[in-house]
């Protein structure tokens, strides 16, 4: 390998310092950005994929060109379960990739820091996903590109170092044969070899690399049982995004372009440039600017962050954490976040007192139009249905999502719990055995396996024991028809009775639906079977009675102060009758924004899916 000599004007310490900076800065930046800034996101990434240490899983991966990358990437993604550890491994993989690029492309010290641009882009790329993380069809996304680029660089390095010429040509031809292992990255390697050899006027090697890179995927498609899509044969192992999400590919394209430029330049740097420091400064500035784009260009949406917090807290049964997250959120929530907050309040025993005290809105999901209609379902169907006791619907959406988006830890966990709740022990064991093979969920699976072996233990599990009473309703045929919230609330509101927990959930649903006729008898039932009637039920009961022209609410456990507040509310309504609705809502919010009355009268036309 040809090494560039030190420039006569350069201080002796500069080159080593540049190498240290080139590797340490990206490493530190990546580690801090991920470990400090996105622990919940990393956990979600880990949950939305799975790795099994079995031959079957390896074979399954290998059905797709690039399967070896997918296999290795999903293995490494498991470490995001401990976000700092995952971030550390990711930063190390990026550093290894960078080292291979430096070797393959003979990058001189003065341009060393520029290689960090690729690191920055590959750190940024997953952070642009947002809600896409729930539906991503590219398992191991974080690691696929770094490992793929590293492999491509290694192949370029091998080809470049090969001597004599026939060996170089042979490696150029053989590079594309790594397509079954590396997918797109084998083609990238062929491309890099073609670029590199073209720049060195090695026409035959370049032509062989280009031709084999173009041809091998077709041979693989037609003569093997590969499952790659024909239109994706050149892009297998690149992330699969939907139409309209092309911008999510930008960081990858920049990273590939950087590597391509470096391969073009390999062996063509001037030994004694006129302005060496200019290269040093420009290189460093480019790398810093690339890292600067991460906070600017990453996906930023408070509702998404809120969803991640609620989701995590609910999965960990940390109800108070979920309520705390809701208290801290000061924006206008999406419908999913409103309902998840209600669930958290219900589990914390506060729903019927506080659920209308939190912001209620229908803020659209900050995602592409292609995903907006299904964002609530993709992110929340299993959570919502499960916590409402509609476990068949939760199971259904786990299954539908598993089919469409691939196998993921989160789906299997819900499916196992639901099978236990449904009394399907054999089915639960199937899911639990699978989870028991994973790095992070062995203990979890063993805990639930005990229930599968002895269903009587179900009541000893606080989570399952809380869901079981919510399943006390009769069987009927139906389906959400794509309108999840309305179906969920209507079905729950329509229930006539059941265990106390289910009655409260049914009343909650009726309150949200403003269906006072339906919930009145259930409020009476609740009042007769509990020592105290929660605040929102009192508010609804008083309002219902007054609207009906009766004083039936007096048979219930109504706080005189609530009754008095309602009288004042009515007086205020009468005093401001002439105001437009929007103005009235503004006027009433400070005093009554936390009441059911405010929700009933002033929060209307919420859009949901």
């Amino acid at each position: 390998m040809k090494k560039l000599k030190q420039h006569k004007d350069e201080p002796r310490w500069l080159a080593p310092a540049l190498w240290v900076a080139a590797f340490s800065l990206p490493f530190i930046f990546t580690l801090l950005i991920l470990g400090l800034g996105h622990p919940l996101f990393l956990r979600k990434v880990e949950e939305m994929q799975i790795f099994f240490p079995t031959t079957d899983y390896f074979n399954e991966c290998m059905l797709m060109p690039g399967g070896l990358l997918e296999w290795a990437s999903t293995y490494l993604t498991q470490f995001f379960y401990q976000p700092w550890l995952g971030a550390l491994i990711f930063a190390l993989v990026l550093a290894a990739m960078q080292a291979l690029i430096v070797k393959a492309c003979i990058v001189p010290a003065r341009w060393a820091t520029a290689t960090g641009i690729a690191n920055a882009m590959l750190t940024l790329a997953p952070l642009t996903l947002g809600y896409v993380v729930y539906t991503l069809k590219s398992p191991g996304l974080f690691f696929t590109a770094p490992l793929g680029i590293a492999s491509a660089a290694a192949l370029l390095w091998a080809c470049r170092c090969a001597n004599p010429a026939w060996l170089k040509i042979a490696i150029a031809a053989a590079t594309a044969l790594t397509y079954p292992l590396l997918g797109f990255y084998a083609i990238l390697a062929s491309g890099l070899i073609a670029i590199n050899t073209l720049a060195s006027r090695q026409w035959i090697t370049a032509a062989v690399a280009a031709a084999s890179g173009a041809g091998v995927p077709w041979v693989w498609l037609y003569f093997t049982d590969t499952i790659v899509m024909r239109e994706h044969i050149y892009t297998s192992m690149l992330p699969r995004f939907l139409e309209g999400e092309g911008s999510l590919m930008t960081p990858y394209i920049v990273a590939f372009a950087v590597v391509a430029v470096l391969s073009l330049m390999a062996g063509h740097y001037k030994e004694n440039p006129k302005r060496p420091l200019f290269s040093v400064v420009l290189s460093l500035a480019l790398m810093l600017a690339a890292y600067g784009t991460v906070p600017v260009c990453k996906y930023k949406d408070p509702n998404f962050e809120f969803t991640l917090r609620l989701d995590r807290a609910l999965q960990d049964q940390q109800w108070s954490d979920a309520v705390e997250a809701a208290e801290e959120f000061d924006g206008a929530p999406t419908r999913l976040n409103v309902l998840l907050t209600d669930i958290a309040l219900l589990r914390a025993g506060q729903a019927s007192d506080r659920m209308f005290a939190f912001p209620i809105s229908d803020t659209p999901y900050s995602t592409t139009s292609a995903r907006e209609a299904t964002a609530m379902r993709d992110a929340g169907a299993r959570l919502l249905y499960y916590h409402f006791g509609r476990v068949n619907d939760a199971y259904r959406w786990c299954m539908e999502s598993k089919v469409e988006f691939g196998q993921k830890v989160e789906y299997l966990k819900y499916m196992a719990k639901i099978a236990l709740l449904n009394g399907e022990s054999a089915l639960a064991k199937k899911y639990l055995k699978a989870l028991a093979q994973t790095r992070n969920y062995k203990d979890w699976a063993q805990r639930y396996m005990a229930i599968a072996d002895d269903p009587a233990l179900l009541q000893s599990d606080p989570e399952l024991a809380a869901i079981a009473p919510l399943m006390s309703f009769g069987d009927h045929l139906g389906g959400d028809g794509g309108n999840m919230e309305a179906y969920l609330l209507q079905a729950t509101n329509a229930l006539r009775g059941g265990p106390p927990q289910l009655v409260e959930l049914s009343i909650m649903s009726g309150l949200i639906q403003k269906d006072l006729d339906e919930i009145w008898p259930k409020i009476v039932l609740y009042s007769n079977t509990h020592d105290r009637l929660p605040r929102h039920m009192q508010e609804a009961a008083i309002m219902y009675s007054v609207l009906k022209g009766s004083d039936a609410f007096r048979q219930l456990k109504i706080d005189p102060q609530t009754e008095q507040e309602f009288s004042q509310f009515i007086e205020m309504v009468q005093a401001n009758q002439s105001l437009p609705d929007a103005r009235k809502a503004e006027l009433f919010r400070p005093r009554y924004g936390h009441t059911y009355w405010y929700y009933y009268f002033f929060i209307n036309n919420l859009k949901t899916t």
Partner: protein
Amino acid sequence: MRFLSYILAAALVVLASCGVTPPADAVDSAEPIEIYPDYAGVTVPRNIAPLNFEITAEAEESMAAFHIGGHEEYCAAGPVVQISEKKWHKMLEQAAGGKIEVVCYTKTDGHWLRHPAFDIYVSDSEIDPYVAYRLIEPSYISFEKVWIKQRCLENFDESDIYNSFNLSCEKEGQCVNCHSFQDYNRSGNMQMHLRVGKGGTLVVKDGEARKVNLKTPSTISAGVYPSWHPTLPLIAYSVNETSQNFHSTHTNKVEVQDAKSDLVLYDVDANTISYIAADSAELETFPSWSPDGKWLYYVSATVPQLSDEEMARYQSFNYKDFKYNIFRRSFDPATRQFGPTDTVFMASEIGKSATHPRVSPDGRFLMFTLGEYGTFHIWHKDADLYVLDLASGDVRPMDELNSPDVESYHSFASGGQWVVFSSRRDDGSYTRLYITHFDENGVATKPFLLPQKDPRSNERLFRSYNVPEFMAEPVDVSKSDIIGAIDNEPAQATFK
């Protein structure tokens, strides 16, 4: 790469098997050995792939020894007992008409135990060497990767006939289903449906693949459930208006229902469709030719005449009232004319619903699936296999095959002595294939799970095996021919 992993696995098996000898100091145990799959006492064809199994009993070490006529032939280390294919087939040849005795050993606390032996009975008869099936997750409306596969039953070779993912996904995602072969694929003629993306029906005849559109203005849908005539270029189809509804609590989880359904006959050469049965008060479906091609069996349920909206409501609230009975119509291959309807079995009279009628190759027995109601028994846990003696009219549940969970699709091997059927007995959700010996009196033996190279694959696989069909010959149409045909616009069938 897959090939490499097989070589590696095979090497490991060989290494693991070398030098394995049963412990001389083993003590007899009365505890029967627990293995998965349960192959104890099953009857297998003389050309079946090795019945690899896992010794599930907890032990420090385990092994299995195979004896024929009291002589030990082979010994393999456990807990995953993977038998050399060569050795296995040699043992089958030796034991044909007799049995292989399997003795399992487990080591606990440093002491070896010898468990009571179990037998594997080896039939003199062979099974058709291939079976085709669809691999799909047991989902409801979603599909992404769906395969029609063929598996050699003599070994573990499995290959794609077609996988839907090569040509489409996302909004244009393709579902592939209902493969059917003429005369156990001896003619090489087959068909399968493609739904949504690049939709149509792929028909392979005389080695040529083409795609046709079987939906005509006169019929309610494209062809659905198929049955190739055993000798003529004719396929009987049901045409169905199908919908799905979901159970809110029942573990059956989903109801797949027909609001309308008729039977049609497709002439492959002429590309024409004509009605076989189209009574609006009847839901005729699941056509199935008798092996001699002179009868067409099918099932049908009587339904009230309702508007579309009323029918949707009726389906939701009265779904248990859909009871299918078995009928047949004679068919004259010379004139291609059907005779009048002949009642075969009135399941509704005993409050049940029958589907999937299949006649044994000797024409004597009719096997079918019986459940409490409805047409889509793969989702009905009460669904069981029944057999009707066409000579005597006797009907009986096949208790020797049935389980507390679903038994549904089934097909006879060409020789009539083997039956493959789908069952959800393993876990209640993921359909697996079981094979049984079926004798001349219509009695079956304890069924055995389709053998796999690694027996744990059955538990690890999150896909169902659907619609098992035996084949005497494998499908040998090239992938490029199939993809080429599917890529083309379909030839429109005409209604005659």
